[in-house]
């Protein structure tokens, strides 16, 4: 007898998806001209038609943001701005289930994650920054630090609403207004957030949302009325943005790619390490810039740990993202699936050994089984390039120094993990690692109080925590 879990799907009746969406400009939804479809990546069902924003839409949004900045938002005290943020945070909590279901439908990630991680963190970011709004004199940026003006924000598809929160909450708390473009494949929760702004009676034009593709993003980046760019996405696009704003007075924070090293020493707590490895690479289908995509194992425990990891991976439940028991959902887009498949094939071709547990993948939609590659070396493409999918490259090391050298031997530097029961070793390793966030005996833990950002080609600046405020403020006296 086996314990089969009967389907436990979360009801989608709570969400009301319109057949077509416009942009959200100056507090109102305005129809777009051209449209493109947004689909559920788990089924390829068309969910809605999204407007493709052009130059004129961006112009209008920037004008609205400028007007709101000069007429209302910059005139409000921090305390008053904070009230709006608290109100938004509370509405987000009240409508959490609606957001969770919509995010899962549009993105493909499991409802367990949207329900337990994404949406609670979204609310937490608004609550955290609401608290800062009237305390900016104490942010370590001098007396009366000033906002930049209009922030242009371009966010990715992996954590659509959470990345919106990372961008919008600090911008508003510090007195900036916003023109935000969600990712092409995941606009729906941003558009629902626009409704929350209306519900919270946020002054018109403080938050503007223009949907679209890369060309829409470029229009925002190049717009002369934008004072600050905040971008999360690929390193390639990040470099283009850096080139585009070179020579202008525009400020920028860039959160880019990563190839996080997860280092396991031979005295690690093995069972929890296995959980941490799984969470590090299979959380959100591996669509995580700070994923622990390189597992670097001390040779003495490599075989035992890989065996344990395989046993654990066989328990990963892949399937309907709306099912409350699903651990691994759909790949967000066909384009991303092709990229994962291409890099995994490169792993095969370069002689690494691929392993996946037996699992049936739906013929409809975009799916990729949880996968590990053993026998990977630093020279393999799958050890160097960001796969951004549920694919783990496993390397080994002999001495702690070698582990650090391998971990740092990458153009990226976003995240790293250290697993050991020896405190002194953890402290030593975290000092050597060139990564913006280093987790010890855990992985992929997020909190609005903690700054997040990259070394090297993983980005500029920090988001979250006190450090994240600096990106949205000019130093006062």
């Amino acid at each position: 007898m086996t314990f089969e879990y009967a389907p436990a799907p979360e009801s989608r009746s709570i969400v009301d998806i319109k057949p077509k969406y416009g942009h959200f400009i100056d507090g109102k939804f305005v129809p777009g001209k051209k449209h493109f479809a947004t689909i559920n990546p788990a089924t390829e069902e068309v969910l809605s038609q999204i407007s493709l924003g052009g130059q004129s839409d961006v112009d209008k949004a920037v004008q609205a943001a400028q007007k709101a900045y000069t007429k209302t938002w910059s005139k409000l005290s921090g305390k008053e701005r904070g009230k709006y943020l608290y109100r938004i945070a509370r509405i987000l909590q009240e409508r959490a289930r609606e957001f969770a279901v919509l995010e899962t439908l549009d993105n493909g990630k499991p409802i367990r994650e949207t329900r337990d991680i994404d949406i609670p963190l979204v609310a937490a970011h608004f609550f955290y920054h609401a608290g800062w709004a009237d305390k900016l004199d104490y942010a370590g940026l001098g007396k009366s630090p000033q906002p930049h003006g209009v922030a242009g924000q371009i966010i990715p598809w992996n954590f659509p609403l959470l990345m919106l929160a990372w961008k919008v909450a600090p911008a508003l708390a510090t007195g900036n207004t916003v023109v935000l473009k969600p990712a092409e494949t995941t606009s729906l929760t941003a558009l629902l957030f626009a409704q929350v702004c209306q519900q919270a009676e946020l002054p018109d034009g403080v938050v503007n949302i223009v949907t679209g593709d890369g060309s829409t993003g470029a229009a925002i980046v190049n717009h002369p009325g934008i004072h600050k760019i905040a971008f999360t996405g690929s390193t390639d696009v990040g470099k283009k943005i850096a080139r585009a704003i070179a020579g202008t007075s525009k400020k920028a924070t860039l959160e880019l790619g990563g190839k996080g090293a997860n280092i396991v020493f031979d005295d690690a707590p093995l069972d929890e390490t296995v959980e941490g490895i799984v969470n590090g690479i299979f959380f959100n289908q591996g669509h995580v810039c700070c994923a622990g995509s390189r597992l670097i194992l001390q040779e003495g425990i490599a075989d035992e740990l890989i065996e344990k990891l395989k046993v654990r991976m066989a328990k990963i439940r892949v399937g309907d993202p709306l099912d409350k028991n699903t651990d691994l959902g759909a790949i967000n887009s066909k384009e991303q699936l092709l990229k994962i498949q291409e890099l995994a094939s490169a792993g095969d071709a370069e002689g690494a050994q691929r392993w996946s547990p037996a699992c049936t993948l739906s013929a409809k939609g975009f799916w990729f089984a949880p996968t590990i590659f053993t026998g990977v070396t630093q020279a393999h493409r799958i050890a160097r390039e960001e796969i951004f999918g549920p694919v783990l490259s496993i390397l080994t090391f002999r001495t702690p120094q070698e582990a650090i050298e391998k971990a740092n031997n990458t153009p990226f530097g976003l995240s790293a993990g250290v697993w050991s029961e020896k405190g002194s070793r953890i402290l030593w390793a975290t000092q050597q690692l060139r990564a913006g966030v280093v987790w010890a005996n855990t992985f992929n833990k997020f909190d609005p109080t903690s700054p997040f950002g990259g070394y090297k080609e993983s980005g500029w600046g920090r988001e979250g925590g006190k450090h994240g405020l600096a990106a949205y403020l000019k130093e006062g006296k």
Partner: protein
Amino acid sequence: MSFYGIVDGSESSLKRFLAQLPGVDQVGAEARAAMLATRSIKTTSKRWAIDTAISMVDLTTLEGADTAGKVRALCSKAVRPDPSDTTVPSVGAICVYNDMVAIARTHLDAIGGKHVPVAAVSTAFPSGRASMEVKIQDTQDAIDAGAGEIDMVIDRGAFLSGQYGLVFDEIVKIREVCGERAHLKVIFETGELVTYDNVRKASYLAMLAGADFIKTSTGKVAPAATPPVVLVMLEAVRDFYQMTERRIGVKPAGGIRNTKDAIKQLVLVNETAGPEWLTPEFFRIGASALLNDLLMQRMKMDDGYYASPNYVTID
């Protein structure tokens, strides 16, 4: 002497073996247990889980006020938990104090409950504070009276002061007393061992010494069978099976009062040790109030509404 070819039973060999076990990260273990608690078990799987849980209950009464009448009533309930529905399985065992074993065994046999074993708590339960002679005699008495299962307690004082050899020897001796006649369950009282590292060490100590089952608690100390404690014990039996090909059972006891809690335990088993453990042979739940909640939930699934508590019997 050699125990599974892993230790020779000496203090030093035990210390060496236990010291090389990987540690348990408290935060990580608790996070894993909490994540598994979010599993949503519905419809057919819930029905299966309820019946499976009923068959795993060690229906327990361990009170100073226990009487022959109380124990007989419990025996009737154990054999036919719901007198109005014969499809409800019997429970896994009856768990009583030593002096009630004969009464329970006789009554069970008389009412068609030969298949329900009697488990006796032993070795100066619950504290374990008695001489070895007394503990051996205690166990022998229970077996002679018809106990098919012995739930012994370890000497927590000896364990916490690092005298692993002493704890080990006691289990080995009680194992000898049990012989082929009784299954041996070893109770750790995890609420007194406190750390998950200790729970893991105690698990291996008991398994190496010959336990058939490892059991969390006496039910007299809180916290008892918390999900992370059970998780750590399930990892231990899983890994011990890998080492020895011998499957040891796990029995959480104490604090599992309703169907939700019981199903969470079954999910822990399923996703940690594996489905091979999902039988009364390898997983038991020590409980008293739990059985009635399982019966109520079972009725609700059949009838579509919650019956009055008067429809389940109170023994």
